[in-house]
């Protein structure tokens, strides 16, 4: 494969990269929301809520992501017809549900690491559990969340390559297609470089965030 050909395929690779980024950011975003509620559920005094959240995390951390993707894309429509999703939606759902399970444990650990005196002070001031959680405890956990959430972002960015298996054209699949069409594997080099650029980007952003949230410490 000639250098010109590689340069010519860069725009296609960039489009694939954008898709990968989009997949990662949106999935982690919804994963965070899901994870926050799962974490609060795990910390709940209500045993049933705790157990349901525990079960969810157990299920999604204990089975392969690739299997979850296949399950949502191929198996769900067979079980119940209205649950038919196209490749993009299936990919988002699988990645968000999966990252939610991991993020739940990250968030729970961060919340539990906050000094118990904080909850007591909030209660002594008349705040309800909900007010204390969302005004006092959760905001303090942000800084402690940043490094592990950064990890999760990078892990998911790479794992998102798995959705190429249900035909979604993100960076991995775009690269494979070019490689097939040109009967050459050289294209994997610029593609790997693009993955590195994206993970580096996240690393830098998270280092910045960590600094920003450290002002009060």
């Amino acid at each position, binding site marked *: 494969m000639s250098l010109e050909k590689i340069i010519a395929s860069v725009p296609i690779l960039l489009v694939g990269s954008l898709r990968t980024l989009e997949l990662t950011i949106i999935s982690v975003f919804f994963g965070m929301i899901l994870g926050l509620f799962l974490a609060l559920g795990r910390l709940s005094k209500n045993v049933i809520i705790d157990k349901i959240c525990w079960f969810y995390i157990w299920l999604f951390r204990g089975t392969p992501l690739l299997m979850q993707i296949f399950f949502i894309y191929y198996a769900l429509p067979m079980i119940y017809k209205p649950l038919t999703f196209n490749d993009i939606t299936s990919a988002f759902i699988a990645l968000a549900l999966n990252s939610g399970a991991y993020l739940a444990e990250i968030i729970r650990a961060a919340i539990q690491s906050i000094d118990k005196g904080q909850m007591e002070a909030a209660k002594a001031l008349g705040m309800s559990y909900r007010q204390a959680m969302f005004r006092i405890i959760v905001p303090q956990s942000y800084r402690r969340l940043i490094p592990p959430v950064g990890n999760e972002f990078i892990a998911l960015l790479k794992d998102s390559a798995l959705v190429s298996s249900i035909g979604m054209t993100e960076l991995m699949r775009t690269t494979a297609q070019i490689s097939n069409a040109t009967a050459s594997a050289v294209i994997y080099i610029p593609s790997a470089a693009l993955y590195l650029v994206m993970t580096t980007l996240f690393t830098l952003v998270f280092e910045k965030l960590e600094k920003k949230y450290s*002002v009060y410490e």
Partner: protein
Amino acid sequence: MIRMEKVCKSFGALQVLKNIDLSVAKGEVVCIIGPSGSGKSTLLRCLNHLERITSGRVYIDGELIDERIDGKDQLKISHKRVAEICAEVGMVFQRFNLFPHMTVLQNIIEAPVTVKKMPKQEAIDLAVELLKKVGLEDKKDEYPSRLSGGQQQRVAIARALAMKPKIMLFDEPTSALDPELVGEVLEVMKELAREGMTMLVVTHEMGFAREVANRVVFMDKGEILEEGTPAEIFSNPKHERTKSFLQKVL
């Protein structure tokens, strides 16, 4: 203002409060002294639901806020009402427990704004006034980590006062402070006592108890062994254990 009737509290098999009867009248300053592990802090924490009692009754301002028989809840009032009453009981902790992610000003206005729904500007004015009172108006935009222990504790007092409490509870407020910072916190507390605040203070500062308290309560092993005026307790203790404790600390 405060009344505890036959209050017992156990943590598992360990009984930390045994049949406590205690009342504090409006405007009274009561100091609780006694060795570590005697249940002083637990007693205080039972007054604002940070701990739930195992049996007995607790009244705040005439209203029953906790009642249990053998650990079974007998309380008929709603969680909301309990929270409302507890909001009228200010508490100052040994380790300050300021909110580290908020500035001094934000710490003080947080509860009035979120709990009492006080307009923000009004809360800010009140906070500035309280900061003047504790001598820290110039620190309002600092984060707690930038303040000394004594300053943090004074902010914590201002934060509790911002809820306009009827009662202030102090849980060893100077025990975590460097010796030279103790005085500034005690000064603020004396000022409060002079203004007529009802105060219940767990302390190891015998000088403060002697000077400011209307009444001193001596606790040991979960029981109130003796109570009386500072003169009675410090000059003429009746109970052997009070005597030996005071000999060690004075």
